[in-house]
């Protein structure tokens, strides 16, 4: 454990720690471009040059290993001059097209220019011309003139995605980042190169020219795209929705969590924000396809339920639930339908299709966000855990009614089979967010909010419970599922249902030890400002 001094502050660090990381522990950010903690060290941008006593010349903080007694000055005149010079070099051939650049506002060139640059250009000659607006793949577009050749993206494709699409070509100031001939930047993680690009060279084709980043607010969240539960940042607009095709959520960005997703998210998760406000969202309650008010539809739904129960008993009803509901929603559903109404058929299991496989990095075959909790919460009372079994029993006439919680059964079982099975049902509820074959097969449709419009926790495949706040208000007439449960309980004259997720989580913790750890008290519930590149 060497002890070193950085800017007159002493710190003890594990052996092998690089000076840049040691400084980070002291809260000192040494400006850098090419260094990224998850990638190999390139040492090429030379921005992190610092003065180390007894060293013959300045050393790069990203590569120099901290040793005992080392005395580092990050802000000496020499270090500052070197940093300013490196920035001047980087800007010498940079097009300075910030007004039309998507990166503006979250660009490390802009940021460091304001902190260590502030020089006037000494360049009297023309800048080098390079490739502009080159489409690298389905998600990423390149402006080579803006590129500072830090090679982060090259190292990402070599070391993380292991797809090897990018390289640096030519020499000297004609060096250029490009994709290898005939090879598109098309891998399941390609969007990450945009995040790690410290400048505007690699931008997201989806986000391009949409929103100036300074109009965006951010909240932390958890991706619901698969069982990994990647930590994300939701960037959204509070106003000026016309910038974003009238939508509030503009993009998902990965949020660093070394225990879950590191610095990355997959493209499927990244672009899953698009469906959150798409035209398939259910926005008003419906009966038999006819929109109605909450009160009338709820009244009808409750009446149908009560009539059915008195005639056929609860065991002719199946609860089919998505395994992506929050822990709180699953627990409330279990309390309400399993323990309260003593329904025995609660099904959530749908085996992942053959096209879904775990990969070596993040992607999980299980596309549900919360299968882990479903197994814990519903297993105790349910006697029909597989959706296939419920379908078969429906087709056999043994199950006469469905309560569906946000489960789209079409992709796994085929739209036709769902529609046909639903025809025989005496009544059916669909509590969910999207219009699909299942919602259309159900009589009563009660629109629920998506995860960005409600607060909750989900449990990833490894059992890690993670909190997400409501980022935006419910869209249209949709309500959080907990509130729909409460309204239904009221109509059915059942005990009151708690709608505050934090309090539901507390009860959940009392029933299931796995959820005993406090989550809501943690300060992570508040949006932490995270910079785009680390």
């Amino acid at each position: 454990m060497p002890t070193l001094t950085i800017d007159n502050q002493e710190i003890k660090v594990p052996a092998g720690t690089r000076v840049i990381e040691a400084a980070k522990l002291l809260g000192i950010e040494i400006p850098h471009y090419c260094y990224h903690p998850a990638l190999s060290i390139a040492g090429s941008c030379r921005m992190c040059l610092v003065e180390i006593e007894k060293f013959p010349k300045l050393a790069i903080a990203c590569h120099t290993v901290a040793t005992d007694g080392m005395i580092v000055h990050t802000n000496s005149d020499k270090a500052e001059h070197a940093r300013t010079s490196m920035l001047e070099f980087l800007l010498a051939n940079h097009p300075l097209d910030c007004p039309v650049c998507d990166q503006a506002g979250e660009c490390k060139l802009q940021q460091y220019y304001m902190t260590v640059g502030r020089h006037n250009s000494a360049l009297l000659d023309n800048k080098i011309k390079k490739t502009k607006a080159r489409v690298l793949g389905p998600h990423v577009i390149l402006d080579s003139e803006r590129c500072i050749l830090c090679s982060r993206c090259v190292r990402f494709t070599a070391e993380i995605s292991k797809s090897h699409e990018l390289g640096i070509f030519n020499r000297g100031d004609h060096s250029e980042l490009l994709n290898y001939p005939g090879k598109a930047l098309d891998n399941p993680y390609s969007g990450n190169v945009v995040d790690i690009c410290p400048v505007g060279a690699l931008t997201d084709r989806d986000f391009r020219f949409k929103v100036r980043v300074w109009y965006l607010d951010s909240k932390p969240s958890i991706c619901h795209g698969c069982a990994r539960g990647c930590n994300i940042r939701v960037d959204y607009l509070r106003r000026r929705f016309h910038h974003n095709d009238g939508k509030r959520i503009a993009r998902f960005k990965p949020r660093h969590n070394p225990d879950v997703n590191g610095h990355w998210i997959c493209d499927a998760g990244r672009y899953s924000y698009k469906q959150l406000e798409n035209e398939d969202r259910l926005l008003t309650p419906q009966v038999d396809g006819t929109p109605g008010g909450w009160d009338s539809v709820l009244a009808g739904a409750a009446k149908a339920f009560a009539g059915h129960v008195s005639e056929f008993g609860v065991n002719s009803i199946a609860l089919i639930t998505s395994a992506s509901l929050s822990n709180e929603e699953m627990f409330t559903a279990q309390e309400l339908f399993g323990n309260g109404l003593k329904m025995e058929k609660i099904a959530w299991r749908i085996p992942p299709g053959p096209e879904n496989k775990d990969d070596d990095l993040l992607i999980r075959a299980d596309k549900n966000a919360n299968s882990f909790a479903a197994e814990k919460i519903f297993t105790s009372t349910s006697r029909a855990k597989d959706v296939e079994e419920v379908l078969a029993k429906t087709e056999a006439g043994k199950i006469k009614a469905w309560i569906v919680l946000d489960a789209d059964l079409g992709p796994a079982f085929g739209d036709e089979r769902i529609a046909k099975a639903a025809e025989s049902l005496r009544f059916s509820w669909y509590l969910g967010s999207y219009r699909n074959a299942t919602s259309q097969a159900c009589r009563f449709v009660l629109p629920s909010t998506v995860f960005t419009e409600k607060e909750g926790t989900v449990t990833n495949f490894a059992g890690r419970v993670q909190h997400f706040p409501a980022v935006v208000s419910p869209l249209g007439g949709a309500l959080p599922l907990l509130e729909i449960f409460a309204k239904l309980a009221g109509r059915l004259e059942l005990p009151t249902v708690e709608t505050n997720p934090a309090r539901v989580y507390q009860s959940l913790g009392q029933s299931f030890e796995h959820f005993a750890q406090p989550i809501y008290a943690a300060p992570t519930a508040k949006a932490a400002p995270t910079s785009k590149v680390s």
Partner: protein
Amino acid sequence: MKLVSKNFDVPDSHKLAVCEQNGGYTRIRKALEMEPQTIIDEVIAANLRGLGGAGFPAGRKWSFLPKDNPKPRYLVVNADEGEPGTCKDKYIMTNDPHLLLEGIMIASWAINSHTCFIYIRGEYVKQAKILEAAIAEAKAAGYLGDKMFGKDFPLEVVVHRGAGAYICGEETSLLNSLEGKRGWPRLKPPFPAVEGYLACPTIVNNVETISYVPWVIELGGEKFASLGSERNGGMRLYSVSGCVKKPGVYELPLGTNLKDIIFEHAGGLFEGRRLKAVIPGGSSSPVLTPDEIDLPMDFDSLAAAGSMLGSAGIIVLDDTINLVEALAVLARFYAHESCGQCTPCREGTGWMRKILDRIVAEGGRSVDPANLERIAKNIIGNSICPLGEAASLPVIGFAAKFPEEFAEYVARGETAKPSTTAVAAVI
């Protein structure tokens, strides 16, 4: 007295039989009777410096090899002779390839390496062929291969041709290139002696350095050292080019006076010409004025004079040479050869080239000389490898020592109409 160049003028000196008639392969036989450590000690005592340009003591480099590393060791001979003004290694490989091979054998024995790569610059096609032929002859004679001179010591020598990049003469770029990677310098540490070719301990030595090793064995370290000056053992090949009557490669002791090399050995200037400047150690070394050339050509003396001995490629410039144009040629070379990996060298060399090209084409601006010097100084010490420095030192040297030549261009540029590029930049 001649050592490495002894057989240069012997007809067919590149052939094994001729070479052996002239003393070839006697030193390796002697060396194989010696303990490897004794050889390293002799090389240290000989003050044999790295003659590629850096001047690092060869014996000390060898002793940096880790003792407890179980990985194989490699010897890599740097034959990527690319420094402008330097052509000494070419002469060795053309005229006495077996001397180089003998040096390789002794060095391999001393450092216990069984594979040697000769990384030769792509343009040296003829030399690569000569080396291949020499290796084949040595192998047929049992000098190389499974049993070197019958000893249970296998040694393979592989000639690897570069693809024409100056940067691959820098030892870590060379190793990357040898591994099939892009010729980009590596961050140090680790140094090649610890992690070199394929992350194995590797010694990279210049052709000339290795070619002097047999002579260290023949003469003994002390005798060899005494040929040169203090801490600069033995002799070396000086490549003299430019405005002299007898340009060529001259083998002289380290510490020979630069003035004598130019005016006696290289025949002096052409009639009626006046000496303007001398680049003493390859194009990267800071230029010397005529007043500064009365000094011994060794690593320490040149460093004390603010220049460097480098590859000992002496470029003589007389009064017919326009120094700003000469500097523009150098700037173009370095901008072309900068690998582009690190910021200061990539952007700085290109920027200096643009300025110098503009000065030559349409005259300079009053800010240009100071800006050139500023750019050069901002590169120095901040780049990954020495190329940045190599590109900057000439600029600083020329600008500081010949300001009047720049002043002429500036005067011309400032009086002329502003160029379109300058106007565009102002707008």
